């Protein structure tokens, strides 16, 4: 079973999984995968002055390149 968890949010979720009687080995695997993935996210840096949505990025890109002809 997952040990030494200090993150309160993670503890809350782990309790929910245990309460749902999910297989302990699966819980261990899931927690391991999640921690690795979240670690990747932790190492990212958010840029300054970015649009709010992907759609805005695409709209800006199309506007900038509207004279491209094929």
């Amino acid at each position, binding site marked *: 079973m997952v040990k030494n968890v200090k993150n309160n*949010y*993670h503890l809350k*979720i782990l309790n*929910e*999984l245990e309460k*749902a*009687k*999910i*297989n302990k080995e*699966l*819980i261990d*695997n*899931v*927690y391991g*995968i*999640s*921690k690795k*993935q*979240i670690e*990747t*996210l932790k190492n*990212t840096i*958010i*840029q300054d002055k*970015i*649009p*709010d*949505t*992907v*759609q*805005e*990025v*695409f*709209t*800006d*890109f*199309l506007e900038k*390149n509207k004279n491209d002809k*094929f």
Partner: protein
Amino acid sequence: MINFKSISEIKDLIFENKNNFFEILESTIEQLESKGKTLNALRFTDKDFAIFQGNKIFSEKNFELPLFGVPLAHKELFQRKLKGGQAWPNEGGSESRKNLLSDQTAKVISLLDKAGSIDCGRLVSVEYAFGVTGHNEYAGTPKNPWNRTYVCGGSSSGSAAIVASGVIPVALGTDTGGSVRLPAAACGLFGLKPTQGLVSRDGVFPLSTSLDTVGPLSRNVEDIAKVLQIISGKDKNDNLSVKINIPDFLTEMKKGIKKISIGLPKNYFLDGSDKIISDNTVKVFSICEKIGAFIKDISIPNIETANDLNMLLISTEAAISHKKIALEKNKSFNQQTLMRILSGVFTSSEEYKKLKKYRIGFIRNVISKVFEEVDLFIAPVWPCLIPSINESDLGANDKAAHLVRRIGHNTRPINYLGLPAISIPIGFDENGLPLSIQLVGKPFSEDLLIRAAFSLEKEFCFWDKKPKI
């Protein structure tokens, strides 16, 4: 009767003799049931509904409809509500959703109905669309028509199997991490993943609300173009849907690729693929040059991060949508699907916000850098040869885990970038299974992708050969 026929060939048969209309419909349903059973690809047909729809379309005599009388079937994630309070099943390929019914008709299905097609039923999907091999313990694992001991890829496995077996000309799938392109590639089809926001997802069973897209699979580019024309467009019921001028894909299709610049990625894609895959991908560039395109080396910044973060975003959003049922009915899930969904429950709301924010900046960086240099780029779809059903069965084979983790290597980053891509069959491997590449374009450049795919279709002539079922 319509085996391996295109949309235009089917329509020609109907116009040649209007009595063919219902004969085509009935024989298609029979073929769906018989080949669907042989290939484990069919969830269900609804002959009564198909005949009812056929009668309505036939009696209205609107022969100009682009899909007049063309029988189709689609991945089981596309909901359909019927009259009189009835509805088609909406099980998402999972025992956990056994007997649940559709509560609406998917927007794209309504658009295909209005275009005159006849909806005959639904095709097997991987459970919750959350897998890349096509395995499904509950609904059955579809078999590849080219060699039935091999997978179809996932998650639009049934759609790929049925179209490649020649029963129908086109089927819709969904693509969140490769789920149109991977099965299309495994079965020798063209499979288009559109730009995020081009095609409505309203009424489609969700996996990841940021990343899900809807796209067609077909044996030829013209049918991809026809169906994409019909299903594209703004829908207020899809929060990611955008209003954009939709080009005439069929007119654009025949323009060729002279003077188009095509990128050869020097990082990530070819390195992460087996040598036979990267060697065959590189050969495609010479063919592109032969038909008038310019080839340029490109490098895509931080693309390996896109692969990992795509997985985190999918599982986080899958957990947001499906955590309740995953906990309550966990014994009714395949353990792999359960693990994938539950690995997203630990993402906090702050982390989720950061995940989405980072993605926006990442997309802006990559598209401004890459598409300043080229109009589109080529990459493999599968990083390895298509595996057998046994060797890629996580439940039965300990060695399958590493293989299965690799499969989405070339497709997931494209979903993360929100870009359009089309898989194109280019030949066969030593096991007689299809080899494919994908073209990846700028946002909303589906017209250019279709042009390039059409040019390459004529070069490779993949469908001169047919699988024997």
